[in-house]
């Protein structure tokens, strides 16, 4: 009997051991099985954020159908939480290029009805208030920029399209008015990303509009993939169109200064726009991600003109000098050395670029040594940004991916362009590790993602993400990591001019690590606009020595007596010079 017992015991132990070893083996190559709480939870439908992008694809392979659309996060009603504006495309009219956007319902505005109970329980819910807000943008929409151009304290919206642009003035009472014509920003060329910024530092936001190529429906070209199957043509089949720069004349009106500013002396097929002070001279510069043409770095010459230093800066092309299919931009200080670096998404096979700034506007291409090249070679990336998703103080990366040409392995399927999105953790040593596998099921889902906007939508101290998909539903990725580390959000206020201080440079000084610098912005990513509040992860300590604000006109103020884990509003003049 004892022998049997011993044998049985031995057998049980042996089987258990085998199972354990096998389990380890299985996990090691089933890398998308997450065994702990996901970092992000997809919650669009659950919160009422119901929107499906319509690209109008009918088998004609019109290039605009492949581009997707953008999203803006803004607090349009100034109630303290982020609302969502989603750009709709629609049906392309084969008879004209006036792009009707028929049958798709147009762009939508969702009001955030976040409630927080006294015990801290959050209920996030969105309500579609498009009609109530008087928004009726019907063109084949592309992107959106957000900014308070008339300094009334309410954020306005500029919508780009394949066709007519639209400027929506926020009336401050929950409604918007289309003021495109009277503002002088009407344009009928194919516009993509745009950015509100104050290039002449006069306190009024100007507008930079990237434009793509001279595609027309009548001039549609026939392109095939390598095996001869019809597919979308790329930008090289058409000619690029110059960008536009509009100067705000302070009277609710803009003047086209593109030629005077020198913006049309060089141009490519523009898709992404980011604004930053890349040479640290206190004046905002503009970086443009161009598709299949060199990217541009428009350096502000302080006199109303710009000079393109893209190629010489080392931020325009691949390491071997070839233009890449650049779409999205993340602009920010990822290595905490006090200057703004650039991460640019490209198409499959090119890898995504990491251009590291030396502080003077010269960049080193560090995609290989950062680990990002190998991890991104199989992807085509669009919306992106630096977000410190775990609040450890080091800016991480999110990328919205989706192909523009048939993926070999998906050939024969209805939508052979699907890819999964990616999340990268900044190790703090100049390298990134992909953490998509533990980010949650949403990161295992392969879709055709395009725009992405970033901000703390549920005001719980961590950065959330809204992602648009081409021809598909919007995705809301709610960050679940917020309370694991300390954080700070900063909202700036200037009394009369550039009310939200777009372009300001905020430095959070702490004893626990290097100063954290963030620029106040809504631009970057792809076709999208993000939260104007600056978010800082503080790591394990909420202690802050002081906050330095370099206001858009170059003057500096210091603010002290601030601790972490809150949103603070810093008003100009209430600090110390």
């Amino acid at each position: 009997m004892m022998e049997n017992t011993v044998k049985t015991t031995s057998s049980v132990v042996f089987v258990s051991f085998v199972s354990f070893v096998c389990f380890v083996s299985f996990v090691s190559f089933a890398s998308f099985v997450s065994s702990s709480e996901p970092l992000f939870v997809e919650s669009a439908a659950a919160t009422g954020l119901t929107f499906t992008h319509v690209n109008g694809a009918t088998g004609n392979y019109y290039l605009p159908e492949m581009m997707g659309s953008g999203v803006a996060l803004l607090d349009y009603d100034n109630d303290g939480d982020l609302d969502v504006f989603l750009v709709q495309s629609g049906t392309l009219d084969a008879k004209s290029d006036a792009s009707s956007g028929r049958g798709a319902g147009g762009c939508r505005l969702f009001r955030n009805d976040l409630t927080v109970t006294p015990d801290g329980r959050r209920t996030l819910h969105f309500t579609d208030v498009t009609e109530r807000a008087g928004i009726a943008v019907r063109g084949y929409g592309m992107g959106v920029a957000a900014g308070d151009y008339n300094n009334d304290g309410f954020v306005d919206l500029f919508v780009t399209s394949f066709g007519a642009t639209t400027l929506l003035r926020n009336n401050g009472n929950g409604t918007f008015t289309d003021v495109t014509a009277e503002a002088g920003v009407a344009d009928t060329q194919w516009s993509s990303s745009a950015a509100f910024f104050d290039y002449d530092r006069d306190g009024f936001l100007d507008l930079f509009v990237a434009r793509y190529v001279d595609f027309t429906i009548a001039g549609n070209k026939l392109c095939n993939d390598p095996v001869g199957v019809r597919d979308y043509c790329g930008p090289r089949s058409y000619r690029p169109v110059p960008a536009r720069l509009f100067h705000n004349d302070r009277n609710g009106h803009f003047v086209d200064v593109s030629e005077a500013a020198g913006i049309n002396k060089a141009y490519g097929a523009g898709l992404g726009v980011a604004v930053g002070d890349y040479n640290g001279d206190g004046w905002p510069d503009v970086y443009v991600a161009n598709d299949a043409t060199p990217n541009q770095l428009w350096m502000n010459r302080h006199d109303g003109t710009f000079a393109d230093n893209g190629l010489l800066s080392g931020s325009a092309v691949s390491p071997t000098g070839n233009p890449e299919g650049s779409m999205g931009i993340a602009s920010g200080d990822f290595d905490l050395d006090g200057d703004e670096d650039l991460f640019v998404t490209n198409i499959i096979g090119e890898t995504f670029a990491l251009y590291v700034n030396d502080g003077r506007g010269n960049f080193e291409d560090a995609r290989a040594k950062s680990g990002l090249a190998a991890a991104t070679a199989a992807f085509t990336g669009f919306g992106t940004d630096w977000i410190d998703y775990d609040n450890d103080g080091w800016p991480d990366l999110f990328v919205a991916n989706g192909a523009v040409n048939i993926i070999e392995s998906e050939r024969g399927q209805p939508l052979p362009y699907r890819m999964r999105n990616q999340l990268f953790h900044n190790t703090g040593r100049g390298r990134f590790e992909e953490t998509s596998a533990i980010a949650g099921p949403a990161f295992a889902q392969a879709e055709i993602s395009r725009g992405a906007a970033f901000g703390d939508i549920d005001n719980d101290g961590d950065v959330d993400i809204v992602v648009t998909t081409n021809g598909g539903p919007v995705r809301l990725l709610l960050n679940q990591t917020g309370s694991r580390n300390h954080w700070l959000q900063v909202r700036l206020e200037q009394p009369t001019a550039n009310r939200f201080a777009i372009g300001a440079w905020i430095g959070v000084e702490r004893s626990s690590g290097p100063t954290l610098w963030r620029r106040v912005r809504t631009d970057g990513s792809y076709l999208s606009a993000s939260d104007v509040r600056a978010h800082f992860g503080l790591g394990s300590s909420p202690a802050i020595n002081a906050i330095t604000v370099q206001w858009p006109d170059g003057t500096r103020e210091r603010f002290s007596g601030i601790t972490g884990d809150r949103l603070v509003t810093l008003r100009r003049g209430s600090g110390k010079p």
Partner: protein
Amino acid sequence: MVCAVLVMAQTTVPPVPQLTLDSYPSSTRKALEPFYRAAVARPNDASAVGSLARALHAWDQWSAAHDTYVRAQSLAPETFEWQYLDALVLERLARHADAASALERALQLKPDYLPARIAFAEALFDAGDRDRSARAFEALRGAPAAEPATEFGLGRLAAAQGRHDEAVTHFQRAVALFPEWGAAYYALALSYRAVGRQDDAQRALERHAQYGARWPGVDDPVLRGVTALRDDADTNLRRGLKLAEAGDLEGAIAAHEAALAVDPSIAQAHANLISLYGRVHNWARAEEHYRAVVALGFNLGDAHYDYGVLLTLQEKWSEAAAAYRLAIAVNPRHANAWNNLGQVLERLRDVQGAADAYVHAVEAEPTFRLARFNEGRMLIALGKPDEAIGELQKLTEPRDAESPRYLFALATAYVRAGHRAEGVKWASDAKALALQFGQNDLAAAIERELATLK
């Protein structure tokens, strides 16, 4: 036992890929099917599997080619070809570390294969293994065919380590060996910038823009065997474009016609042939291809424009204008069509119409210097010299072979506007520049004008 199976699964050789041949066009299906059927029928036959891999490689099916090469390697590990070609595919997939490993294995089988040695050194660099990359490039010294790549590679290594003076030396040698190397000029520009030689950097960037993606070739019979597998319409079209660029018009025509023989629906081939036949003055054939592309209904902008050029060459001005207008109707931003429309309207003595057309050309493409020059000329002809000065002033930089006539036009505008001294200055500049570029007739004409002014 279960565990053993699972462990094996982690290193399993990929099966022969499943191809959805039915979704391929018939010409591609016909080309790939024999290879595919053979590999499916004999999945453990290295030659059959390797042949399929090569075919997939030829048709740019990178992932499937890689998987199939891996299978071929497992079946015949001593075959250099499968390792080497897989490495090239891995490079196309930007998997540099894997490519370097594959090349290392390949070189164990054929240590002297020069293209593999160069690719190995480059893959190591791209994978971040700088020490081994440096050794691999140093080992290439003494191989004349590898010299450009060696200098370029050593330059990149030096630049990556901040030794930009040394990098400049290497890159200068690289472009001396292959003067049309855009990438080398780009790298040289960045190193010049790093050592403070801004003007040299700018000049190097201009060369980079001029030469683009041109790269020095090294004879690679193994790869050539792969590219030779494909003789489809697309391959012929690409060959035709290369021949046209090289000035071999008859060869370009033959290649384009070969493409259409395989697939008559390639609108781009028809559109290109309008221009190619036009250049050899075969109007009838050019017209045939124009009708064909219009019937297809694609690439219409290019087609109408090229037909307009064809008619312009035949001096059929009104018909040419109509063709250009059709191109503009398809694409209102067709700068070349606007410019050419302006040229034929000048022939038809419609100066205002020509001026308007040039304005549209410049609006569509602000960097179109020729169109802006034409606009300036028309403004002078219309008696608007001040406006002409405004436009022509924008053409004073850069100074290249086109500039002498631009500066001469500017001089004329100044004189017509009553600013004689300024006009003389610009005319003198124009003459000096014309002589510099060997444009002696223009210089003589300018000199005659100057004589009348003085």
